[in-house]
Protein backbone atom coordinates (compact mmCIF):
# COMPACT_ATOMS: atom_id res chain seq x y z
CA UNK A 1 0.00 0.00 0.00
CA UNK A 2 2.86 2.35 0.85
CA UNK A 3 4.43 1.41 -2.47
CA UNK A 4 1.40 2.73 -4.37
CA UNK A 5 1.59 5.95 -2.46
CA UNK A 6 5.17 6.65 -3.47
CA UNK A 7 4.48 6.19 -7.14
CA UNK A 8 3.07 9.62 -7.80
CA UNK A 9 4.92 12.81 -8.25
CA UNK A 10 2.81 15.04 -10.39
CA UNK A 11 4.11 16.58 -13.55
CA UNK A 12 1.14 18.92 -13.54
CA UNK A 13 2.11 22.54 -13.76
CA UNK A 14 2.43 23.75 -10.20
CA UNK A 15 0.26 26.47 -8.81
CA UNK A 16 3.00 28.98 -8.27
CA UNK A 17 0.89 31.59 -6.53
CA UNK A 18 2.43 31.85 -3.08
CA UNK A 19 0.12 31.76 -0.07
CA UNK A 20 1.15 33.64 3.06
CA UNK A 21 1.08 31.69 6.30
CA UNK A 22 1.87 32.60 9.87
CA UNK A 23 4.25 30.09 11.34
CA UNK A 24 4.71 29.68 15.07
CA UNK A 25 7.27 26.97 14.38
CA UNK A 26 9.39 29.36 12.32
CA UNK A 27 9.02 31.98 15.04
CA UNK A 28 10.35 29.52 17.64
CA UNK A 29 13.09 28.29 15.36
CA UNK A 30 14.47 31.81 14.95
CA UNK A 31 13.86 32.64 18.60
CA UNK A 32 16.30 29.86 19.50
CA UNK A 33 19.08 31.32 17.35
CA UNK A 34 18.28 34.97 18.05
CA UNK A 35 21.23 37.19 18.86
CA UNK A 36 23.77 34.80 17.39
CA UNK A 37 25.73 35.19 14.19
CA UNK A 38 27.81 32.94 12.01
CA UNK A 39 25.67 29.85 12.57
CA UNK A 40 25.33 27.12 9.96
CA UNK A 41 21.75 26.55 8.87
CA UNK A 42 20.62 23.80 6.52
CA UNK A 43 17.63 24.35 4.24
CA UNK A 44 16.39 21.02 2.89
CA UNK A 45 14.01 22.69 0.45
CA UNK A 46 14.79 23.92 -3.01
CA UNK A 47 17.01 26.98 -3.25
CA UNK A 48 15.01 30.14 -2.67
CA UNK A 49 16.10 33.73 -2.97
CA UNK A 50 13.86 34.66 -0.02
CA UNK A 51 15.44 32.11 2.31
CA UNK A 52 18.97 32.93 1.21
CA UNK A 53 18.39 36.64 1.76
CA UNK A 54 16.68 36.18 5.12
CA UNK A 55 19.21 33.81 6.63
CA UNK A 56 22.35 35.43 5.29
CA UNK A 57 21.06 38.86 6.39
CA UNK A 58 20.99 37.45 9.91
CA UNK A 59 24.69 36.77 9.47
CA UNK A 60 24.42 33.00 9.13
CA UNK A 61 25.86 30.61 6.62
CA UNK A 62 23.18 28.76 4.64
CA UNK A 63 23.48 25.35 3.05
CA UNK A 64 20.83 24.16 0.63
CA UNK A 65 20.10 20.53 -0.19
CA UNK A 66 17.02 20.46 -2.48
CA UNK A 67 16.42 17.11 -0.84
CA UNK A 68 13.30 15.90 -2.64
CA UNK A 69 14.70 16.76 -6.04
CA UNK A 70 17.83 14.79 -5.19
CA UNK A 71 15.62 11.88 -4.05
CA UNK A 72 13.63 12.02 -7.28
CA UNK A 73 16.83 11.94 -9.33
CA UNK A 74 18.59 9.25 -7.31
CA UNK A 75 15.76 6.72 -7.09
CA UNK A 76 14.54 6.81 -10.66
CA UNK A 77 13.66 5.41 -13.10
CA UNK A 78 11.67 2.43 -11.93
CA UNK A 79 10.04 1.53 -8.65
CA UNK A 80 11.04 4.37 -6.33
CA UNK A 81 9.62 2.62 -3.26
CA UNK A 82 11.69 -0.54 -3.88
CA UNK A 83 14.81 1.52 -4.50
CA UNK A 84 14.28 3.61 -1.37
CA UNK A 85 13.90 0.40 0.60
CA UNK A 86 17.21 -0.96 -0.67
CA UNK A 87 19.71 -0.33 2.14
CA UNK A 88 22.65 -0.22 -0.26
CA UNK A 89 21.01 2.44 -2.41
CA UNK A 90 19.95 4.41 0.64
CA UNK A 91 23.53 4.40 1.94
CA UNK A 92 24.86 5.43 -1.46
CA UNK A 93 22.32 8.26 -1.58
CA UNK A 94 23.33 9.51 1.86
CA UNK A 95 26.99 9.41 0.88
CA UNK A 96 26.19 11.94 -1.86
CA UNK A 97 23.60 13.93 0.05
CA UNK A 98 23.54 15.25 3.60
CA UNK A 99 27.24 14.48 3.66
CA UNK A 100 28.43 16.75 6.45
CA UNK A 101 30.64 16.30 9.51
CA UNK A 102 29.02 15.37 12.81
CA UNK A 103 27.51 18.31 14.66
CA UNK A 104 27.97 20.65 11.71
CA UNK A 105 24.63 22.47 11.71
CA UNK A 106 23.05 24.79 14.27
CA UNK A 107 19.58 24.35 12.82
CA UNK A 108 17.75 22.59 9.99
CA UNK A 109 14.74 23.78 8.01
CA UNK A 110 13.35 20.40 7.03
CA UNK A 111 10.01 21.76 5.73
CA UNK A 112 7.83 18.91 4.37
CA UNK A 113 10.63 16.90 2.79
CA UNK A 114 10.27 13.86 5.07
CA UNK A 115 6.69 13.15 4.13
CA UNK A 116 7.29 11.82 0.65
CA UNK A 117 9.97 9.17 1.15
CA UNK A 118 9.81 5.45 1.94
CA UNK A 119 10.27 4.31 5.57
CA UNK A 120 13.82 2.93 5.09
CA UNK A 121 15.08 6.14 3.55
CA UNK A 122 13.14 8.17 6.11
CA UNK A 123 14.70 6.38 9.08
CA UNK A 124 18.20 6.67 7.61
CA UNK A 125 17.67 10.35 6.83
CA UNK A 126 16.54 11.12 10.37
CA UNK A 127 19.54 9.25 11.75
CA UNK A 128 21.79 11.32 9.49
CA UNK A 129 20.10 14.54 10.62
CA UNK A 130 20.66 13.52 14.23
CA UNK A 131 24.37 13.13 13.50
CA UNK A 132 24.94 16.35 11.56
CA UNK A 133 23.18 18.77 13.92
CA UNK A 134 24.72 20.05 17.12
CA UNK A 135 23.27 18.98 20.45
CA UNK A 136 20.57 21.43 21.64
CA UNK A 137 19.88 22.69 18.13
CA UNK A 138 16.49 22.58 16.40
CA UNK A 139 14.76 21.18 13.35
CA UNK A 140 11.61 22.70 11.88
CA UNK A 141 9.42 20.24 9.96
CA UNK A 142 5.93 20.12 8.49
CA UNK A 143 3.61 17.13 8.26
CA UNK A 144 0.04 16.70 7.09
CA UNK A 145 -2.51 17.19 9.85
CA UNK A 146 -4.90 14.62 8.38
CA UNK A 147 -4.67 11.34 6.53
CA UNK A 148 -5.12 11.66 2.78
CA UNK A 149 -4.97 8.95 0.15
CA UNK A 150 -5.00 11.40 -2.73
CA UNK A 151 -2.01 13.46 -3.80
CA UNK A 152 -1.62 16.69 -1.88
CA UNK A 153 -0.07 19.99 -2.89
CA UNK A 154 3.65 20.10 -2.25
CA UNK A 155 5.17 23.44 -1.40
CA UNK A 156 8.24 25.51 -1.69
CA UNK A 157 8.59 27.24 1.70
CA UNK A 158 9.83 30.80 1.42
CA UNK A 159 10.60 32.88 4.48
CA UNK A 160 9.15 36.36 4.30
CA UNK A 161 9.58 37.31 7.96
CA UNK A 162 10.61 35.84 11.32
CA UNK A 163 7.18 34.26 11.66
CA UNK A 164 5.78 34.42 8.14
CA UNK A 165 6.12 32.02 5.25
CA UNK A 166 5.02 32.17 1.63
CA UNK A 167 3.98 28.74 0.42
CA UNK A 168 4.50 28.49 -3.33
CA UNK A 169 2.98 25.49 -5.09
CA UNK A 170 5.46 22.83 -6.20
CA UNK A 171 3.15 20.32 -7.91
CA UNK A 172 1.50 17.48 -6.03
CA UNK A 173 2.88 14.49 -4.17
CA UNK A 174 1.45 11.65 -2.14
CA UNK A 175 2.56 11.48 1.47
CA UNK A 176 3.84 7.94 2.02
CA UNK A 177 2.54 7.61 5.57
CA UNK A 178 0.36 9.56 7.91
CA UNK A 179 2.05 10.47 11.19
CA UNK A 180 -0.01 11.32 14.22
CA UNK A 181 1.68 12.95 17.22
CA UNK A 182 2.68 9.62 18.73
CA UNK A 183 4.12 8.41 15.43
CA UNK A 184 6.13 11.62 15.09
CA UNK A 185 7.55 11.23 18.58
CA UNK A 186 8.53 7.69 17.68
CA UNK A 187 10.07 8.83 14.44
CA UNK A 188 12.30 11.32 16.27
CA UNK A 189 12.87 9.10 19.31
CA UNK A 190 16.61 9.80 19.39
CA UNK A 191 16.00 13.53 19.76
CA UNK A 192 15.34 15.25 23.07
CA UNK A 193 11.77 16.28 22.32
CA UNK A 194 9.19 17.06 19.66
CA UNK A 195 7.01 20.11 20.11
CA UNK A 196 3.75 20.37 18.17
CA UNK A 197 2.01 23.56 17.09
CA UNK A 198 -1.71 23.87 16.58
CA UNK A 199 -2.63 24.86 13.08
CA UNK A 200 -5.80 25.87 11.28
CA UNK A 201 -4.84 24.40 7.94
CA UNK A 202 -3.69 20.99 6.72
CA UNK A 203 -0.06 21.42 7.73
CA UNK A 204 1.15 20.61 11.21
CA UNK A 205 4.35 22.26 12.34
CA UNK A 206 6.81 20.64 14.67
CA UNK A 207 10.03 21.73 16.30
CA UNK A 208 12.43 18.95 17.17
CA UNK A 209 15.23 19.51 19.65
CA UNK A 210 18.42 17.52 19.27
Amino acid sequence: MLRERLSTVSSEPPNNRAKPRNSNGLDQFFAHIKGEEGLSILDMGSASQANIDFITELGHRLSTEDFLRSVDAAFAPGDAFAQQSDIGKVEAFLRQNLDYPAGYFDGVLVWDSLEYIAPSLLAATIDRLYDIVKPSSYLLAFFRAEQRAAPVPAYSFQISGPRTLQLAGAGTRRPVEFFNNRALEKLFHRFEYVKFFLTRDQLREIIVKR
Partner: protein
Amino acid sequence: MSSLPGRIPVAEPRNEAAAIGKSVVIKGQILSREDLFVDGELEGTIELNEHRLTIGPNGKLQANVKAREVVVLGSVHGNIEAADRIDIRKDAQLVGDIKTARIVIEDGAYFKGSIDIIRTEGKAAAAAATPVTRPQQTTLPAGNTPPALNRPPERH
Protein backbone atom coordinates in the same frame (compact mmCIF):
# COMPACT_ATOMS: atom_id res chain seq x y z
CA MET B 1 8.57 40.65 -22.88
CA SER B 2 10.25 43.05 -20.53
CA SER B 3 13.64 42.43 -19.07
CA LEU B 4 14.93 43.34 -15.64
CA PRO B 5 17.01 46.50 -15.49
CA GLY B 6 20.70 45.81 -15.49
CA ARG B 7 20.29 42.24 -16.68
CA ILE B 8 22.42 41.31 -19.63
CA PRO B 9 21.14 38.70 -22.07
CA VAL B 10 23.43 35.73 -21.75
CA ALA B 11 22.00 33.04 -24.01
CA GLU B 12 24.68 34.01 -26.52
CA PRO B 13 28.20 35.19 -25.77
CA ARG B 14 28.60 38.94 -25.71
CA ASN B 15 30.76 40.31 -28.47
CA GLU B 16 33.60 41.25 -26.17
CA ALA B 17 33.71 37.90 -24.34
CA ALA B 18 35.94 35.03 -25.30
CA ALA B 19 33.86 31.93 -25.97
CA ILE B 20 34.25 28.19 -25.63
CA GLY B 21 31.73 26.51 -27.90
CA LYS B 22 29.44 23.67 -26.98
CA SER B 23 31.44 21.01 -28.82
CA VAL B 24 34.68 21.91 -27.03
CA VAL B 25 36.05 19.80 -24.14
CA ILE B 26 38.86 21.21 -22.02
CA LYS B 27 40.81 19.66 -19.16
CA GLY B 28 43.11 21.98 -17.28
CA GLN B 29 43.42 25.50 -15.97
CA ILE B 30 42.01 28.62 -17.57
CA LEU B 31 43.29 32.07 -16.64
CA SER B 32 41.60 34.90 -18.49
CA ARG B 33 41.94 38.68 -18.54
CA GLU B 34 38.63 39.14 -20.32
CA ASP B 35 35.05 37.97 -19.92
CA LEU B 36 34.50 34.35 -20.83
CA PHE B 37 31.48 32.40 -22.07
CA VAL B 38 31.69 28.63 -21.65
CA ASP B 39 29.12 26.52 -23.45
CA GLY B 40 31.25 23.37 -23.66
CA GLU B 41 32.71 20.97 -21.10
CA LEU B 42 35.51 21.88 -18.77
CA GLU B 43 37.29 20.00 -16.01
CA GLY B 44 39.86 21.85 -13.92
CA THR B 45 39.92 25.44 -12.68
CA ILE B 46 38.89 28.82 -14.06
CA GLU B 47 40.20 32.17 -12.86
CA LEU B 48 38.98 35.46 -14.27
CA ASN B 49 39.61 37.62 -11.27
CA GLU B 50 38.31 40.93 -12.63
CA HIS B 51 35.90 39.56 -15.18
CA ARG B 52 32.61 37.84 -15.78
CA LEU B 53 32.23 34.13 -16.42
CA THR B 54 29.05 32.90 -18.07
CA ILE B 55 28.31 29.19 -18.16
CA GLY B 56 25.93 28.78 -21.08
CA PRO B 57 22.94 26.44 -21.17
CA ASN B 58 25.05 23.64 -22.67
CA GLY B 59 28.03 24.31 -20.43
CA LYS B 60 29.18 21.56 -18.07
CA LEU B 61 31.87 22.45 -15.59
CA GLN B 62 33.59 20.22 -13.13
CA ALA B 63 35.77 22.96 -11.81
CA ASN B 64 36.44 25.48 -9.11
CA VAL B 65 35.80 29.00 -10.32
CA LYS B 66 37.06 32.41 -9.27
CA ALA B 67 35.71 35.50 -11.01
CA ARG B 68 34.26 38.94 -10.41
CA GLU B 69 30.84 37.85 -11.58
CA VAL B 70 29.46 34.43 -12.49
CA VAL B 71 26.27 33.67 -14.39
CA VAL B 72 25.17 30.03 -14.48
CA LEU B 73 22.71 28.71 -17.04
CA GLY B 74 24.22 25.24 -17.39
CA SER B 75 25.71 22.75 -14.96
CA VAL B 76 28.54 23.28 -12.47
CA HIS B 77 30.09 20.83 -10.01
CA GLY B 78 32.62 22.78 -8.02
CA ASN B 79 33.08 25.73 -5.73
CA ILE B 80 32.52 29.27 -6.94
CA GLU B 81 34.04 32.45 -5.59
CA ALA B 82 32.55 35.58 -7.15
CA ALA B 83 33.80 38.87 -5.73
CA ASP B 84 30.79 40.81 -6.96
CA ARG B 85 27.84 38.51 -7.64
CA ILE B 86 26.61 35.16 -8.78
CA ASP B 87 23.47 34.74 -10.81
CA ILE B 88 21.94 31.25 -11.00
CA ARG B 89 19.27 30.97 -13.65
CA LYS B 90 16.14 28.85 -13.75
CA ASP B 91 17.45 25.70 -15.44
CA ALA B 92 20.93 25.80 -13.95
CA GLN B 93 22.39 23.05 -11.79
CA LEU B 94 25.04 23.92 -9.27
CA VAL B 95 26.59 21.55 -6.74
CA GLY B 96 29.29 23.19 -4.67
CA ASP B 97 30.00 25.98 -2.22
CA ILE B 98 29.52 29.63 -3.06
CA LYS B 99 31.36 32.62 -1.68
CA THR B 100 30.13 35.95 -2.98
CA ALA B 101 28.95 39.44 -2.09
CA ARG B 102 25.53 39.04 -3.75
CA ILE B 103 23.55 36.12 -5.05
CA VAL B 104 20.53 35.97 -7.32
CA ILE B 105 18.84 32.63 -7.75
CA GLU B 106 15.79 31.99 -9.90
CA ASP B 107 13.04 29.60 -8.83
CA GLY B 108 13.59 26.24 -10.46
CA ALA B 109 17.38 26.30 -10.26
CA TYR B 110 18.97 23.27 -8.59
CA PHE B 111 21.52 24.28 -6.01
CA LYS B 112 23.17 22.07 -3.45
CA GLY B 113 25.91 23.52 -1.29
CA SER B 114 26.62 26.34 1.10
CA ILE B 115 26.48 30.10 0.69
CA ASP B 116 28.89 32.49 2.36
CA ILE B 117 28.08 36.14 1.83
CA ILE B 118 31.17 38.33 1.84
CA ARG B 119 30.28 41.57 3.58
CA THR B 120 32.94 44.00 2.46
CA GLU B 121 31.52 47.07 4.26
CA GLY B 122 31.15 45.14 7.49
CA LYS B 123 34.66 43.81 7.19
CA ALA B 124 36.09 47.29 6.62
CA ALA B 125 34.15 48.69 9.58
CA ALA B 126 35.18 45.80 11.78
CA ALA B 127 38.80 46.16 10.74
CA ALA B 128 38.72 49.87 11.59
CA ALA B 129 37.17 49.22 14.98
CA THR B 130 39.31 46.21 15.88
CA PRO B 131 42.80 46.57 17.35
CA VAL B 132 45.39 44.99 15.11
CA THR B 133 46.49 42.56 17.78
CA ARG B 134 43.03 41.02 18.20
CA PRO B 135 41.94 38.29 15.77
CA GLN B 136 38.96 39.29 13.66
CA GLN B 137 35.97 36.97 13.69
CA THR B 138 33.73 38.23 10.93
CA THR B 139 33.83 35.07 8.86
CA LEU B 140 33.85 31.38 9.62
CA PRO B 141 37.17 29.61 9.41
CA ALA B 142 37.83 27.73 6.21
CA GLY B 143 37.88 24.52 8.20
CA ASN B 144 34.11 24.83 8.64
CA THR B 145 33.59 23.85 5.05
CA PRO B 146 32.49 20.23 4.84
CA PRO B 147 35.36 18.18 3.44
CA ALA B 148 33.13 16.66 0.78
CA LEU B 149 32.50 20.09 -0.70
CA ASN B 150 36.10 21.25 -0.79
CA ARG B 151 36.67 19.41 -4.01
CA PRO B 152 34.53 19.37 -7.13
CA PRO B 153 31.90 16.74 -6.34
CA GLU B 154 31.60 13.60 -8.41
CA ARG B 155 29.14 13.69 -11.21
CA HIS B 156 25.89 11.84 -10.66
